[in-house]
């Protein structure tokens, strides 16, 4: 339906059979306007065959054609990850079954309900990149997932249980947890011979390669202040309001509706925005649970919690102070660009300083500076 030429991008497919009735500008989750294709669905939906593709197509081309992106939330095109630079050898394929954020359970359900697809996807990825080892990382609050995958998987798939800890689902942190290798600053995981894919992505790759099915739907966790929280297999493009309806509607007063998880997701101003490939969850927070929209100006009490929790060993307190002063030389020296924006610093700060928010400003300034150089 929609295709692109840029390397780091992916085509989109219509999730329904129907007729294109127009191309319109719609509001997306970030609040920005974007071009969208409007499809009028046929009364009879036909899902038994997909658009034909040449039989000679290889795995990477198939993944590219199917429009598969990282399903953990970042929506990075999977074909890029399957085409590592020629001089880099991938030894270990890691499947990320660590839920990327608290509240979310879509990876969990995927592993419970489609362990076969996950395992098959793992093997497809392994063969595509010529790796020798497959690790599936599952957090220790889901022992049944680890058991099931172990029972179903071949002997060459290792299922490892990790302590449940945010932000372990982040790529570099997961590699470190499993392999004790640090991905160097500015480098790809391939530089430590590893490749990470989310379990949902693996399942989608499996369906694309074996059934020629493009990415048109995904599992989305709808939770928080809704009457019947659950995980929903959702067609892309579905409005958020329809998902909230499907979960029984709001169960009380609403503080914020988030697309994604509570730590890195986007607060929605408009519930008619469509879900996209990277939408892992819809979380409805009550007013009491919601962090303040406006932060005060209490000074830092130097408790050091922000740096104690920082998974990148940064100094969020200093970064915040210098970002407030727009001192971009200092923020650059303090490695602002290494921040993964997990939000832990802002979460723990007892004086509620907007630390990750300030670091984002610094990162933005650095990227702008880098462009103008």
């Amino acid at each position, binding site marked *: 339906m929609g295709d692109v030429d840029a390397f780091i991008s992916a085509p989109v497919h219509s999730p329904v059979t129907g007729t294109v009735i127009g191309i319109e500008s719609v509001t997306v989750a970030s609040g920005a306007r974007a071009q969208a294709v409007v499809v009028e669905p046929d009364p009879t939906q036909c899902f038994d065959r997909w658009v034909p593709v040449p039989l000679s197509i290889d795995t990477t081309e198939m993944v590219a054609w199917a429009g598969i992106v990282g399903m953990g939330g970042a929506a990075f095109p999977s074909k890029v990850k399957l085409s590592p630079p020629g001089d880099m050898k991938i030894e270990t394929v890691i499947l990320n079954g660590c839920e990327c954020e608290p509240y979310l359970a879509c990876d969990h359900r995927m592993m419970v309900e489609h362990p076969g697809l996950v395992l098959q996807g793992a093997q497809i990825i392994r063969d595509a990149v010529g790796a020798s080892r497959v690790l599936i990382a599952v957090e220790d609050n889901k022992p049944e997932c680890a058991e099931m995958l172990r029972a179903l998987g071949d002997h060459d798939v290792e299922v490892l249980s990790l302590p449940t800890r945010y932000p372990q689902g982040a790529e570099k942190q997961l590699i470190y947890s499993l392999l004790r290798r640090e991905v160097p600053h500015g480098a790809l995981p391939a530089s430590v011979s590893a490749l990470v894919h989310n379990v949902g992505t693996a399942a989608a790759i499996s369906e694309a390669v074996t059934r020629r099915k493009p990415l048109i739907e995904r599992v989305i966790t709808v939770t928080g202040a809704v009457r019947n929280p659950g995980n929903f297999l959702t067609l892309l493009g579905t409005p958020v309001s329809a998902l909230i309806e499907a979960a029984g509607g709001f169960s009380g007063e609403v503080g914020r509706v988030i697309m994604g998880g509570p730590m890195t997701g986007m607060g929605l*101003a408009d519930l008619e925005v469509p879900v996209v490939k990277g939408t892992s969850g819809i979380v409805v927070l009550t007013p009491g649970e*919601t962090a303040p929209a406006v932060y005060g100006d209490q000074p830092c009490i130097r408790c050091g919690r922000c740096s104690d929790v920082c998974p990148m060993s940064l100094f969020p307190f200093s970064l915040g102070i210098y970002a407030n002063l727009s001192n971009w030389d200092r923020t650059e020296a303090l490695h602002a660009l290494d921040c993964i924006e997990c939000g832990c610093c802002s979460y*723990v700060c007892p004086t509620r300083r907007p630390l990750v928010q300030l670091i984002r400003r610094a990162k933005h300034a650095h990227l702008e500076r880098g462009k103008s150089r």
Partner: protein
Amino acid sequence: MSAEETSRQLPSIAPSPHVAATEGVTSIMLWVVAALAPVTVLSVAYMGWTAAWVLLASVGTCLATEWAWNAALKRPHTLMDGSALVTGLLLALALPPRTPLWIVVVGGVVSIALAKQLFGGLGWNLFNPALVGRAFIAMSWPGVLSQQQVPGGWFRGLELAGTETLDAISGATRLALSAADRSASGGYAFDLQAQYSPLLFRNLEGSIGEVAAAAVILGGLVLIAKGIIDWRIPVGYVGTVAVLSWAFGSDPAFNVLAGGVMLGAFFMATDYVTSPMTRRGRFIFACGCGLINVVARFFGPAPEATTWAILFMNGLVPLIDRMVPVRTFGWGGEK
């Protein structure tokens, strides 16, 4: 609920994260107060109103000074953050029970006005406010802390709640005696090990907070378990004192229990504002406190050196924060 109703509710938006830990400054400060409760209660139980008056005068002065400062400068009031309460409590616990109340009041004003607010208030002070208050008293009225009579007869009697006689508790502390013995003869005139039990559970010498080291340790362990203070500071501090005392040929356990070492290690050196920001920095800072404490105790003029050790290291905190390297994840090199 219909789709229309669903979309009509306009939720608030803001950048992530959308949730925050519930622990704030006030709850942290109240936990510190709770952790100080055992030693405070024991001090009043053993010393009665003598200690209670010092506690009340110190806390009252600190709260009043905090309020008056903000009122005078037309700033938002900060009493509710609980930091002035903690400072008042710590100052009282660092003073002997018979400190004249007007001196306690001066110490409280110095702590809040001079050491904290003049630097910009909570978060900006370089030195621990309670210890600055104590140091001010120590320099202005040296007799108060060494428990000699000061001119003017301001000392109040210590109400006796035990078998100790006034003579036994008005002289030099056993810590001072041990130091004097040591410098005179290299040996001790009394058995240091026999002092463990009184120092841990019932000690009427020295400052109010030295009344029972066990109660201080209990409170400190609660704060460590709650994740409010970093274990590296008390461990580094007490550990250094123990090792160096042993190295200098004294009794390690007596030296960590006597004087204000426990109170200093668990409650003074762990002050967020005046201790380093990094874990490794905190450990270095704590070892420095222990080193200065022991050296001053064995070779300096005053055996009770906790205040000076911590204040000195407070002054080095900016340097420690700048010089102790922390390697960013993925940057290789030295860790």
